[in-house]
């Protein structure tokens, strides 16, 4: 039998989905859902690196998602006729800004542990929400609480798909390296980790910054998919959504996070289609119930600490 190449899987998946899109089997509505699933996957993989692998409890993930979205949207909106290059440039700049902000925030607050860190990141999330709400006072183009509209639409299926694949690869390569193991050892036992010579401050910050950068990348794609940003898209509840996905998928499992992120997106939207309109609002009851059931049946999440084979092989 021929050896299965790990590259074939994403490529065949891409061709399959692209054919379905081009032939019109998937209407624009579902195309958007697929792309949203990609965006949520990227952001969740980022949080999984922070919480699942490095063990640092963050409730402020949506803030970094928002920083990425607003930064890039501001750039592409300022130069509206520059084509795809400006989108790419805005992605790079958003990454740099998010990395810088998360580094500056991470350095002082990562000294805190578990619940206390959660509260500190939550505080940061709330501060950012207030800033997004009032940003128009400084830069009118950001729209503040009225929302930021007419962002050029750059995100398409190809972008979303390949950025997701890139994210999976980078996170996988990082986690299965000596640096990744250093991060995991902090989750396992911080004192033991220090005592075998690991600079825990450095690796906590590294894990946090990389994780936040992916939230920012997801934000960039989000802004240019929906072409409209509102501060409520980046509030505390959005951080909780991502946290749910990471816990549901299994802390420290890339495969689990991907399944949970895609499943979560399609469940929410699928219920919208499946349920009759009278009980449509019940979907917000059904999905937390599913969460409870999954957590009882599989307390370690869907993936536990198991990975798909193709994510492990080099």
């Amino acid at each position, binding site marked *: 039998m021929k050896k299965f190449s790990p590259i074939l899987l994403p490529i065949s998946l891409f061709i399959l989905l692209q054919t379905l899109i081009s032939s019109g089997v998937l209407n624009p509505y579902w195309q958007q859902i697929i792309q949203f699933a990609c965006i949520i996957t990227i952001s969740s993989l980022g949080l999984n690196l922070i919480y699942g692998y490095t063990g640092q409890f963050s409730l402020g993930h949506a803030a970094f998602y928002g920083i990425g979205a607003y930064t890039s949207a501001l750039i592409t909106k300022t130069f509206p006729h520059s084509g795809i290059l400006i989108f790419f440039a805005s992605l790079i700049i958003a990454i740099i800004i998010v990395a810088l902000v998360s580094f500056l925030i991470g350095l002082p607050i990562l000294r805190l542990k578990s619940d206390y860190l959660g509260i500190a990141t939550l505080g940061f999330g709330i501060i950012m929400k207030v800033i997004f709400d009032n940003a128009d006072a400084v830069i009118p183009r950001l729209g503040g609480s009225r929302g930021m509209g007419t962002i050029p639409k750059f995100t398409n299926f190809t972008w979303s798909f390949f950025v997701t694949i890139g994210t999976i690869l980078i996170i996988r390569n*990082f986690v299965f390296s000596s640096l990744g193991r250093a991060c995991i050892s902090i989750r396992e036992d911080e004192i033991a980790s220090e005592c075998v010579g690991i600079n825990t401050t450095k690796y906590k910050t590294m894990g946090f910054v990389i994780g936040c950068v992916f939230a920012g990348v997801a934000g960039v794609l989000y802004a240019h998919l929906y072409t409209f940003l509102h501060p409520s898209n980046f509030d505390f509840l959005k951080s909780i959504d991502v946290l749910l996905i990471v816990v549901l998928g299994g802390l420290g499992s890339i495969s689990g996070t991907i399944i949970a992120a895609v499943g979560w997106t399609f469940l929410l939207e699928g219920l919208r289609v499946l349920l009759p309109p009278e009980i449509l609002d019940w979907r917000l009851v059904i999905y937390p119930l599913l969460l409870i059931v999954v957590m009882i049946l599989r307390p370690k999440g869907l993936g536990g600490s198991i990975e798909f084979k193709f994510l492990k092989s080099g």
Partner: protein
Amino acid sequence: MTPVLELKGLTKYFGGLKAVSNFDIKIEEGELIGLIGPNGAGKTTIFNLITGIYLPDDGNIILSNESIAGLKPYQIAQKGISRTFQNIRLFNNLTVLDNVRIACHMHANYGLWSAIVRNRIFSREERTIEEKARDILSIFKLESRADEISRNLPYGEQRKLEIVRALANKPKLLLLDEPAAGMNPQEVEKLMELIHFIRERFELTIFLIEHQMKVVMSICKRIAVMDFGEKIAEGSPKEVQNAPQVIEAYLGREC
């Protein structure tokens, strides 16, 4: 000859409690020295001060002519002091191999970029780390356990793995905090053989805290005794056993 480790007037307070007071000791190269004392005497605090988990309030810690007081634990580990813990601290959910590989991290010479693009430096360094880790596991006959989750090892092997992990970053000085705690007599025998083996094989200095007198008295050439944060005696096992202050600390005063 300069001592490997020298503690000078080491003092540590916890609030109003003097946990360690004016503690002096010199440890020569290649020595196996024991530290004993009743519960709460401050033995583990000494280890925590040496490894930088606590900062001393007064005094100095000198590792081969260089003061290490005030350095971070990871810096001290990188300078060549490794330790084990009284209540085993393994990376419980990781494999035996990963436990040792993590301890080899400080010798990994590649950065974030190499890790992400997986270039040749990455493969070369990862191969070296894995070889080193497997080598040391095979020295201690743990290679067959390499892929097991460390939490699932029997107690005695968890202790052993913790020592192996401490040795993986090639220390000059090994601190063992009650390695025989919770072991049955056969396991204690094995542990004593293991400690002898480590000294011969790795040519390092060992500083040992132990409660089981049998262990300390039989393997250490020199013993320091602590009570209420102070050193009350130091010398050969025999000298220490007969010292009146030691008998008083352990058994109380005759009325």
